[in-house]
């Protein structure tokens, strides 16, 4: 955050800013997603209005819900493994906070600028599986156990297509640094036309589709919501959780949705940037300072677009069966993404 350094902030001050920024970057999108999509869009798709009483158009409903959850009794089942049971939601939320650290929000507005940012992101996103497994195991409930095991199997199966889909982007950009991937997209051009930059959704469309399906599964949204599966497993690994521990799971679910949508928009839609040709910038050094403030807004807008797709599918589809899902991952998605990598590599070498 070099633009903050201009104010001569000491190192501890920067850390405080980073933590606060991380909290905002996780909780604000989560709240927006829950209100806009879960409360309102879902209701509109079902010919109803959704919450209308709390605040104008029910916009404060989430505050009311959080208040309700905080008031509830914190119940731990008698046979549960208490320590692990209490740790599990924190681990799930932790992975979200670790993820948001690498998302760039502007030319200088980033939390960390990893050289291997996307590699790190894919690695820490798997931490949530650990939390889910812990929750499923520690609950001492058969439904929870089944849900936890399903989650583990599903998330591991979909990690691979996700990684393979990202590799196409990495090959094309020639870097694993998310900031440089954004720059490469916005500074690029398609056959000499640079009005759109070169968002990888066009050249890596197959990769984008595979990535979207994979994050749908990674976020356990319908049609891949077997770990929760209300009608089969009651609530899967969350069955025994109530009160604020359930709230943490809930925030974790939608915050992860937001952060994954941010990563997807960074990888495929050009992230915080607008095509540099619009303002005549050549490289990231020439980008004006106001992009540090416009960048987060652009990222959030693109994130909402991606989340809209995720939620739209969620509200329209029934869910797969566990074995069908595994078959789909291993027999369809992974071969497709492998072919995608090969084609990308051939083009990269040939051009």
């Amino acid at each position, binding site marked *: 955050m070099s633009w903050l350094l201009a104010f001569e902030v000491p190192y501890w001050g920067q850390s405080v800013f980073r933590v606060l920024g991380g909290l905002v970057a996780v909780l604000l999108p989560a709240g927006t997603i829950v209100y806009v999509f879960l409360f309102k869009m*879902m209701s509109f*798709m*079902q*010919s*109803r209005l959704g919450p209308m009483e709390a605040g104008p158009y029910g916009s404060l409903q989430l505050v009311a819900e959080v208040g309700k959850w905080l008031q509830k009794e914190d119940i731990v089942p008698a046979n549960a493994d208490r320590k692990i049971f209490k740790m599990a939601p924190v681990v799930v939320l932790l992975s979200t906070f670790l993820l948001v650290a690498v998302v760039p929000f502007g030319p200088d507005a980033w939390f960390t600028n990893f050289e291997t940012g996307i590699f790190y992101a894919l690695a820490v996103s798997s931490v949530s599986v650990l939390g889910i497994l812990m929750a499923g195991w520690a609950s001492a409930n*058969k439904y929870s156990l*089944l849900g936890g095991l399903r989650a583990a199997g599903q998330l591991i199966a979909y990690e691979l297509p996700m990684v393979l889909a990202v590799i196409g982007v990495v090959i094309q950009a020639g870097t694993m640094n998310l900031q440089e991937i954004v720059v490469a997209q916005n500074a690029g051009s398609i056959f000499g036309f640079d009005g759109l930059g070169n968002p990888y959704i066009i050249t890596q469309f197959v990769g984008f589709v595979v990535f979207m399906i994979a994050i749908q599964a990674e976020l356990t949204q*319908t*049609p891949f*919501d*077997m770990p929760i*599966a*209300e*009608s*089969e*497993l*009651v609530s899967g690994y969350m069955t025994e959780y109530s009160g604020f521990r359930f709230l943490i799971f809930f925030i974790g679910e939608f915050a992860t949705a937001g952060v994954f949508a941010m990563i997807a928009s960074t990888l495929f839609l050009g992230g915080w940037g607008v095509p540099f040709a619009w303002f005549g910038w050549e490289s990231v050094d020439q980008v004006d300072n106001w992009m540090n403030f416009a960048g987060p807004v652009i990222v959030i807008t693109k994130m909402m677009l991606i989340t809209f797709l995720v939620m739209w599918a969620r*509200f*329209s*589809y*029934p*869910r*797969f*069966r*566990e*074995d*069908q899902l595994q078959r789909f991952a291993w027999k369809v998605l992974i071969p497709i993404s492998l072919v995608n990598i090969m084609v990308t590599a051939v083009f990269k070498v040939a051009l």
Partner: protein
Amino acid sequence: MTIVNDPLNAKLGDRERLSYIASQAADARLNVELETEGMTLNIGPQHPATHGTLRIIARLDGEQVVWAEPSCGYMHRGYEKLTEVRTFPQVTTLINRIDWLGSFANEVPFILAAEKLMGVEAPPRAQWIRTILFELSRIANVSLFLGDLGVQMGAVTPVFFAFRDREYVLDLIESATGGRFHPNFDRIGGLKDDLPAGWIQETKQVMRKMRSFCDEIESLLFGNEIFQSRTRGIGVIPRDIALQYGLSGANLRASGVDWDLRRDQDSPLAWKNADWKVFTHPDGDSFARCWVRLQETREATKIVDQLLDGIPSGPVMAKVPKIIKVPEGEAWVSTENPLGEMGYYVVSRGDVGPFRVKIRSASFNNISVVPWVLRGVYVPDIITILASLYFILGDIDR
């Protein structure tokens, strides 16, 4: 030496043989020390998928069901016994509550049985209105099934569509009878009242809405590849098994048996005056059951439309004494209710109330096939199979 009763050599379906092998394997594994044990999963009585209080005890090997059995009776209300201490007019208000989604259809067979014993016949206008309301309750019932199907498979939207459009039908039933859920409109010898003015026009509009609802559900759910992969080939009930277990209604027709009491039985109701079709499906799987029900809803809207056009004029009540005493005798009347064949065996001893009533409700017989059909399936398929068999808890436990 030939081994009698060897399932591996007997003529069995693939699924059956697989489930036999799986159960043998599970048993063998149970006997080995330090091996994983089978898990007994107790689905219900309080479980979101059993829409009511049905309990299913399933022994699992991983996620595969080795053995499953439904355990019913958690909502037993003793209607057969209750009817013995009620007078005939009071009985209809009780039996409304058996299949609570298609209440009017419950009243009709009982009233027909009582009329048969008394030797009275309701006037034609009453019979037509009865048939119309019967089909409306079928539409209300099955449209909720179509939405519920989605929610059992994880799609949240169809159930809201179902509740939205079913409300139009319930409004119709309420404006004609006074009760949304429990009409209690049928009387021995006719109906309580005639239709209010403007009802026929309104009904025709609602029938158009219901047909577009069917189209919506078809493109949202039935056409969906995920839905098809979840239901096609899952929970197959062959024709002979369906007959052996006494299935009825759409579950039987989905197994390829062309049997519909509305057409096959000589009933005083007005179905014979409409031109309609009985749908069957050769597959017998979950998809077939859902598909047959969807087509039946469409067909029911057509029946209602045709009957509305030809409703005869006249009284809606035959001459019956004020205090109804049913002469001594026994009568059995069954009709094709939304869930299947529903019948009442009424025994009268010449009193104001029945001496004994035996209720044959469709769901109770329909779920008797559950232990057979659940063997060897996966846990998620339990839910789809139960959803496609479509039972109402009140109809099972009475």
